[in-house]
């Protein structure tokens, strides 16, 4: 197995997913904000709300285009770069992806066309329904993708079949109602809603600071602040920590995030900050909050959180079991399919994946040396420092946004938001925060899953396609060049249209279309077509 190919395949997947995830959260959140604005328009009949839907819809469209572009890759990349993964788990993992297409993506994509082009062809109510269907469609998409992803973290409802050499579904309902998938869904879409809210808040704040189109900015600001407050509370309160006691991957992830080297007596303390030290397996200069971790992770005061050292010992035992399972699988494959062999295999096959971990170190899994077993067990723990820090950045940004959105809500409800210069400036400055938090969260979830592509079932190192390193270098570079180029264009258009504000709708009602010269502090500019 070529380790370079494994690393490059991971990097390519990470980069393409990273790019895709720059656009998805905003789509998720802004879609609902548009639906809310249009509902207000239909209920009140006030033109300004229709203009808001159109203006924010324009920015939505600019973002959505790249979401679609980068999303195309995701549907096919399992096949191109993760061929063995695709064969090994397609029976289970493919189902939610296909259902996503049929149930959600069609809905979203068909109605997005009517959203943009149907203003004069649909009744008010029809158009409103279309907008809601776009929002629902994009969120259903997220649901199925996170069901697929949740299964990678906690593969329930499936079993290995030695005849076909793959995992096969034995319970569709367990797959759908996987608790890890459920908490992930709520947490992820809420993060998307926060992104949408922060986006509208920051741009409205910009208009307010420039004293432009105030009625438009105020209304947008108020809707985003209310929607954002509910969302940020949901993200924080319904964080996905509650899913961290489910399955070995999640337990390991939790220990790593907290740099919990030893199993402490319940309830565990939460390490606020510190310097995780991989060599000595301890966290230097740690500041701990008693009880907090136990409460958050286990929702109790008497369950303990297993530490990294104990997890390694546990994993080593399972690797040894896995070697037995692999040996029996070889026997089965060579035709020894007597009942006794089958029964013995069935008894240990839950640990087959742990046996496969050894494939990274030796082709002869059953003859692995003690040293290789120890190494494989040690490598079941993802690097601590990156996990420790990305998690804390995510949480820190979450609380920062809670504060900013809370303040926005407070001042908006008192109708004085436009005078809080400090808040408006902070909102603009904090615009990247939701994206950084989303990407960090995604990193914690997926980097923390290593060394598995499917937790306890299939190691990442075994999942790749048999392409050459040259292929990977070329495709990786091509993705980076294409995506970055398109991202620059997207930024250019986004900034241009956001700055021009509702004047870009050319309705004649907004700032730059009226006498731009008598507005202090603004610089006339061409509004784009």
């Amino acid at each position, binding site marked *: 197995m070529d380790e370079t190919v494994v690393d490059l395949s991971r990097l390519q997947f990470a980069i393409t997913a990273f790019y895709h995830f720059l656009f998805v959260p905003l789509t998720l959140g802004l879609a609902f904000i548009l639906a809310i604005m249009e509902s207000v328009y239909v209920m009140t009949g006030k033109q300004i709300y229709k203009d808001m839907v159109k203006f924010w819809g324009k920015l939505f469209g600019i973002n959505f285009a790249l979401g679609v*572009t980068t999303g195309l890759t995701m549907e096919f990349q399992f*096949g191109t770069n993760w061929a063995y993964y695709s064969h090994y788990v397609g029976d289970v993992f493919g189902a939610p992806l296909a259902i996503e297409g049929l149930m959600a993506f069609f809905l979203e994509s068909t109605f997005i066309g009517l959203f943009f082009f149907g203003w004069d062809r649909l009744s008010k109510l029809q158009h409103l329904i279309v907008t809601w269907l776009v929002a629902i469609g994009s969120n259903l998409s997220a649901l199925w993708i996170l069901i697929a992803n949740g299964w990678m973290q906690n593969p329930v409802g499936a079993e290995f079949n030695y005849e076909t050499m793959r995992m096969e579904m034995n319970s569709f309902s367990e797959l759908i109602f996987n608790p890890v998938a459920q908490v992930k869904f709520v947490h992820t879409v809420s993060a998307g809603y926060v992104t949408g809210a922060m986006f509208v808040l920051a741009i409205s704040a910009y208009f307010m600071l420039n004293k432009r189109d105030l009625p438009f900015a105020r209304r947008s600001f108020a809707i985003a602040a209310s929607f954002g407050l509910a969302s940020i509370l949901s993200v924080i309160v319904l964080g996905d920590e509650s899913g961290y006691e489910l399955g070995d991957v999640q337990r390991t992830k939790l220990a790593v995030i907290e740099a919990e080297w030893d199993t402490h007596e319940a309830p565990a303390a939460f390490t606020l900050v510190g310097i995780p030290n991989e060599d000595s397996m301890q966290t230097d200069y740690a500041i701990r909050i008693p009880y907090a971790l136990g409460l958050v992770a286990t929702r109790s005061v008497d369950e303990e959180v297993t530490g990294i050292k104990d997890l390694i010992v546990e994993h080593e035992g399972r690797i040894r079991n896995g070697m037995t399972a692999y040996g029996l699988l070889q026997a089965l494959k060579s035709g020894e399919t007597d009942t006794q062999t089958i029964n013995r295999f069935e008894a240990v096959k839950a640990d087959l994946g742990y046996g496969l971990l050894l494939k990274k170190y030796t082709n002869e899994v059953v003859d692995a040396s003690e040293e290789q077993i120890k190494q494989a067990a040690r490598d079941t723990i993802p690097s601590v420092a990156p996990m420790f820090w990305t998690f804390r950045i995510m949480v820190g940004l979450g609380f920062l946004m809670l504060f900013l959105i809370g303040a926005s809500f407070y001042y908006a409800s008192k109708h004085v938001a436009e005078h809080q210069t400090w808040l408006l400036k902070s909102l603009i400055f904090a615009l990247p925060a939701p994206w950084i938090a989303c990407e960090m969260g995604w990193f914690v979830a997926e980097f923390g899953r290593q060394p598995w592509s499917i937790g306890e079932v299939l190691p990442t190192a075994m999942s790749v396609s048999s392409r050459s390193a040259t292929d990977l270098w070329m495709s990786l570079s091509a993705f980076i060049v294409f995506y970055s180029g398109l991202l620059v264009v997207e930024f250019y258009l986004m900034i241009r249209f956001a700055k021009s504000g509702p004047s870009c709708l050319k309705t004649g009602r907004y700032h730059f279309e009226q006498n731009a010269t008598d507005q202090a502090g603004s610089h006339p500019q061409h509004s784009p077509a």
Partner: protein
Amino acid sequence: MDYESLKLIWWVLIGVLLIGFAVTDGFDMGVISLLKVIGKTDDERRIMLNAVGPHWDGNQVWFITAGGAIFAAWPIVYAVAFSGLYWALLLVLFALFFRPVGFEYRSKIETHRWRNIWDWLLTVGGAVPALVFGIAFGNLFLGLPFTLNELMQTQYTGSFWQLLSPFALLCGVVSLTMLTMHGAVFLQLKTEDELVVRARGMALLAAFLTLTGFTIAGVWLAFGIDGYTITSLVDGNAVMTPLDKRVAIGESQWLANYEVYPLTLLAPALSLIALLTTMYFTLKHYAGRAFISSSIAVAGIICTAGFSLFPFIMPSSIDPVFSLTVWDVVSSEKTLGIMFAVAAIFVPIVLSYTAWSYYKMWGVIRAKDIHANQVGMY
């Protein structure tokens, strides 16, 4: 329902998704690959873009869903085909990248340079996938150089350039002209004046080329290319891997199905007739009938390829035993059953709201519509 029926149903369903893709997104690709060919002015090019504007995104989902369905129903096909045809698939994807951004960004800025660049990129986004899909299909008849081992790991030994054999290139051209025809016929429904005249001319030319290419490919397949056939007994209800059968290669074997099941001859026959009626209705200015004919031709040509290959999906040129067939690439009976139920519920729903969206957006696009709504239109 037994496993054998489910295997056949999924072969049909994936065919339906591919046909859905070619019939709907096919005209999007056709229209934008003609952007610089028959769109002489900026207004004309905007008319063409807005003709497919409300629909291309929904249409593209047929492609994405077909990808997801192959993953779910034929996991090993998804694995072997996409990892093996790595560069061909990436070429398609990179070309398709230009469409969402091209449509959305092109008319947002008024300079000639900006729009011209996007027009070229959109042309690439239409023509390249159409061509590569055909080349890939052509290679299925020739067999692809891949192996499988006991663990079902696959190794592909060919390069991208080896895909460009004369027969495969002919299939690529048929695919390109077919979708160009379909796009040009669609434009007859949505345009008027000089543009519709040019669209008609292009439809006639493309239909003629498709007819010629399709016929040559058929003859070539009959006399010049060896086909594959399963020689061991296959129990459709059995759990199989691709290694559990024997396969032979023989002359004219790709046409064997037409002898065994003569009804399948309807596919190539309908394709030829529909290509002729497309030309006839185009000449008579019956745009609606031309579009129905062209859709039948597209569906018929894909069915012809599918019927000829059946039960093969992806033959191996290294050792025919590795070949992937309808019987041995499928997911478990349970997954196929569940996914069939999902498809049975959602495909009709998708079709009905898609139809509603076409109904709502029906009608000719004129330059004055675009001038009246500069901001809202592509």
